[in-house]
């Protein structure tokens, strides 16, 4: 144990000799990885200590936003055959997949987590259960999650409904009263798009209209989509120039929101 305590500052002091804005530079990362690997391979360190080193390296690197590297250390920790609580590794791997927008990876991490916590029930606290249910709702749209993770879960499920062209389902998830005074552009334009997709020309006004009128030429998804929707409810068709501009925008600047454009374009 003493040996480990001695060597850890060595490993990390090398990593943190960073002269750049981030605390740990890329060059230092390479050094720390070489050092950590050499120590992990040492006969002085048993699996339980290796687990702790990996967890701590994953944690520190997560904190300084080296997510790819953090993932590696957390995965290493998971792969070790130890009885220690691996909750941190499983949860933070789901977190990284979540904010990276990688749903497939999130699904894989969620399945792996579920398997782990079901086999190690003493680590499956009510908070972990709450977390897992929020991820499940975000992935499937099923269930009800409120509070801390409520918005995240519901928004993820709503986006999936739009992507899957389940417009009525998506619209049913929204409380229109909540849009009064809304300042969230995604909420506003998603509601407007779903409303028009479901109710077509019966829709007489759009929540996004005031912002669109103020900034008609803004090169951003909320305004571009609002322009298309406005034309549709006024004239029953899109302006071809605006449509071409929208295609360019969503192909070149914002593929993440292309699912919304595809929903609107489908009105034709």
């Amino acid at each position, binding site marked *: 144990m003493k040996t480990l305590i001695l060597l850890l500052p060595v490993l990390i002091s090398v990593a943190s000799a960073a002269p750049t804005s981030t605390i740990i530079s890329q060059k230092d990362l390479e050094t720390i990885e070489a050092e950590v690997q050499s120590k992990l391979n040492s006969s002085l360190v048993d699996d339980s200590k290796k687990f702790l080193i990996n967890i701590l390296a994953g944690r520190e690197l997560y*904190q300084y936003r080296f997510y790819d590297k953090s993932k590696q250390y957390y995965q290493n920790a998971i792969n070790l055959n130890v009885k220690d609580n691996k909750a941190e590794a499983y949860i933070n791997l789901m*977190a990284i997949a979540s904010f990276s927008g990688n749903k497939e990876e999130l699904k894989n991490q969620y399945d792996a987590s579920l398997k782990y916590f079901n086999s190690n029930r003493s680590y499956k606290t009510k908070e972990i259960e709450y977390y897992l249910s929020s991820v499940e709702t975000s992935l499937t749209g099923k269930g009800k999650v409120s509070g801390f993770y409520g918005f995240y879960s519901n928004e993820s499920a709503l986006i999936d409904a739009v992507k899957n062209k389940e417009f009525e389902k998506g619209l049913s998830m929204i409380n229109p009263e909540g849009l009064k005074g809304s300042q969230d552009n995604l909420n506003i334009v998603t509601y407007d798009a779903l409303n028009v997709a479901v109710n077509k020309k019966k829709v007489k006004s759009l929540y996004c209209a005031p912002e669109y009128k103020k900034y008609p030429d803004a090169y*951003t998804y909320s305004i571009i989509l609002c322009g298309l929707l406005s034309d549709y409810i006024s004239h029953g068709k899109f302006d071809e120039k605006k449509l071409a501009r929208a295609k360019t925008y969503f192909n070149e600047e914002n593929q993440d929101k292309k699912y919304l454009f595809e929903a609107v374009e489908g009105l034709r």
Partner: protein
Amino acid sequence: MKKNIALLILMVVFSSCESQVGTAVGAAFTNIFTGKGFSSSSGDEMYKAYVEKETLGGGGGYGEVASCSDAADALFMVPNNSSSAFSNIKDKLCSCKAWGSCDNKSCSCEKLCPDGFDILDRGQKDISSPENSLSFNNADKAFYAKDRNYTGYCWGHALVTQRFNRLATFNSGYQKLFSKAGESSQRIKYYKSIIEQLDNNMPVEIMGFRSLKEFSSDPEVKDLLQESVKKNWAENAMSIQGLSMVTGSDSQGEDYYTNLFNDVESRLKRNQQPAMVFNKEGEATAAHTVLMSGSGVDKKTGERYLCVRDNNFDANTIDKCQKKMFLTKAGKVRYEFLTPYVAPAMVGKMKMSYTENSNTVEQMKNLKTHCLNSKNCNSTASVTK
């Protein structure tokens, strides 16, 4: 034993290449063996090192006016307020403090770009003002049919606001970049790069806008910022450290809250508006994150309070300490706006955001580098480190 000695030698060699940063990160690693667990990280250790350095006098005095006269002194010196004499003296006026207007010949780089909390003092009169706030609130209340009491992306909103307040300089005297027809794509990339730099705790200069409010009102920026708020929320709230915030909601006791109030006050004095995470007593998932912008004592009740910059509310209703969180005489914390109009309003768990220290330290380091560059102190940078 021999192996231990070899390791010790290695440690000395490596440590000699590094100063407090390496020591701090190393200390954070050893914490896992001393039972401190999640509560301490390299960011915490480095923050403590800055505080200790200041306490020992290493960081003090940077804000003092030194070799240059300040405006009041200069006016006192003007014998008869004649316009020519006043003009001559006025031309020589400059402030010799962090981010001051003196050049590095009349004021040392150590004073212009100090290695301590003074570097966070960007000279803004009221950081909490609507002009220095995002133009939009935390996510809409009651947007979803199934959940009308969600908490939105408060953590991300607080951190993005904090980063702008600490790291962004608005230069309204310059033209907006890429504002001509046909430059839309470059403009979007420019805005993205600004947000990316801020997310990495890097200082930014923003041309053509006078304030955060104006900048974040531009729909092109607003759309990007709302995504950034969500990403920042997920990075923090979705982590195990974020989850730990909704583990339990019991009242923490008078001593705990008193220490926390003290900690916030010490940070306020050190030019910070810290991000605080808390939940409702007895309801762990009713959690929220806000910035703390001031403190005081209620004259009528004698209760201590913190000023809450609550992102669930319009910026006009949270400046000038309009929302207060009280430390009651019973040793509990009361905040009436967590779930508005629903009493009782007692706070359960309450902690500094777990990235508060690591972000602050990183921002200070980057601000200093930025300051040294902007003050042409590059040649002396190595000396001042």
